[in-house]
């Protein structure tokens, strides 16, 4: 698990300076916990929404909505998270609310795109076979299309998660306790060490999240295919790392 190793290394980079006048490690850890929670709170609805939209626009009935959904996702992606946070503060107050909204906007596109691409890549014969055997459309989606699309969808989720962890730093601007706090403080006080600590801690968290996601997914896949003698159920990292 290369991601987890990287995460550990970066975490050291982030924490070590704490003993030499940098940002105190205790506070950094507290911020990291809050950061992780915030990122999760943003990425989960983004993932659900992206998945739901992706499924919707690949159904025969939702195909008409595809251009609109694509355009919306692109627009959402183009709003810089800082701006989204700032615009959302008057409506949502300080703290998590506006940040979650920004993460939501930012996370939908990767998940939506990955879901659509993955569902379109499902072999048409498998889909046809599912219908021909008497699956209802929903059953075919649940038991055939989604499982086959899963590796690519997972890739999209991974991207969204990493983006969310990196982006959650802007929550600092809205008063949420995140690893963006030392970054913004450092920027204001010209303290490069704080910026480095914040950035390294954020990166560490992102890698750790990625590693955990892949480990969880690999575990799930492994359980699903435990009984198979085939070499196909290989390590998830190697598969999803492929472009």
């Amino acid at each position, binding site marked *: 698990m290369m991601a987890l190793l990287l995460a550990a290394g970066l975490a050291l980079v982030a924490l070590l300076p704490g003993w030499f006048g940098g940002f105190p490690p205790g506070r950094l850890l507290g911020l990291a916990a809050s950061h992780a929670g915030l990122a999760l709170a943003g990425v989960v609805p983004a993932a659900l929404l992206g998945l739901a939209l992706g499924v919707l626009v690949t159904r025969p009935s939702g195909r008409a909505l595809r251009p609109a959904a694509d355009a919306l996702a692109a627009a959402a992606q183009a709003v810089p998270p800082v701006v989204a946070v700032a615009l959302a503060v008057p409506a949502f107050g300080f703290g998590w609310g506006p940040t979650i909204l920004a993460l939501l906007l930012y996370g939908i596109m990767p998940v939506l795109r990955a879901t659509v691409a993955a569902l379109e890549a499902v*072999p048409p*014969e*498998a889909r*046809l*076979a*599912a*219908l*021909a*055997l*008497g*699956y*209802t459309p929903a*059953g075919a989606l649940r038991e*055939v299309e989604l*499982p*086959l699309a899963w590796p690519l969808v997972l890739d999209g989720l991974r991207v969204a998660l990493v983006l969310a962890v990196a982006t959650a730093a802007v929550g600092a601007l809205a008063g949420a306790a995140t690893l963006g706090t030392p970054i913004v403080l450092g920027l204001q006080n010209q303290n490069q060490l704080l910026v480095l600590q914040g950035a390294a801690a954020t990166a560490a968290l992102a890698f750790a999240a990625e590693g955990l996601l892949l480990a969880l997914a690999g575990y799930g896949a492994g359980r*699903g*295919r435990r*009984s*198979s*003698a*085939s070499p*196909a159920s290989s390590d998830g990292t190697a598969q999803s790392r492929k472009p």
Partner: protein
Amino acid sequence: MIAFENVSVSFDATEALSCVNLQVAEGVLCALVGPSGSGKSTLMKLVNRLVEPSAGRVLVRGADVAGQDPARLRRSIGYVMQSTGLFPHRTVAANIGTVPRLLGWDSSRIATRVADLLELVQLDPDLAQRLPGALSGGQAQRVGLARALAADPDILLMDEPFGAVDPITRRDLRAELRRIHAGTGKTILLVTHDPEEALELASQVVVLRDGAVVADGAPAALVAEDAPEFARTLLGGGQPGLRRLSLLPAEVARDACPAPADAPALPEGATLADALSRMAETGRDVLALGKGSLRLEAVLARGR
């Protein structure tokens, strides 16, 4: 069992089928042949509502399919595709057990059924836990067949089921199918590109061309001299006389008188064409067939 009444199907611009009328009786193995794009697959998909008619009615077991729940209907009809369409993420056993699971069978009953089916299509039980990616083409086709048979449907749709396998495996699978059809008496609709296969397996052959049925009848009738020209060319392959002989069991020309003691013997179940081949090989004009004999003139007389 299956009836098409004035059925037409249009896709956007193209008319895939126009005014098709066709009956397939219970227990019949009906072969659909015709050039590529003639509408064979479309005709077949009407039966389990993968395609909807733009005009006309399709009756299955006497009832119009239009009024039936598609999922229920499909579970009651087996379907085998050329590209197998096996679910790549499910083991062989899970693939075969799909429809029973949809029908809510309990798992021990499914397991028993899967084991029976593997035996029926002559697959090693060890394959049950493999994923389809790890099967050879012929094995995958057998799994596809087993999957279609799983819930013991009385109707089986087979769309070029043996298209992707080599000729040796193909011959095996063909024998398999004949055996299963004989043993179960299912109604089978079989799309094939191979005229020999159609003639050999089917008791009814339907020839399609440009979305219309141009011939429909017993195999022998379609290679006879009075058969429609297109069907004759398609099915006869330049030697309609020999094709006819290959459709007839040797018994029909048997002579009760015993053959000379040194006459070569013809095995049980051989066709008249087999008899002719054996005569050419041995240079003899009489063969022993069971207790009786088979004479060259009698064989040739049946080619008309």
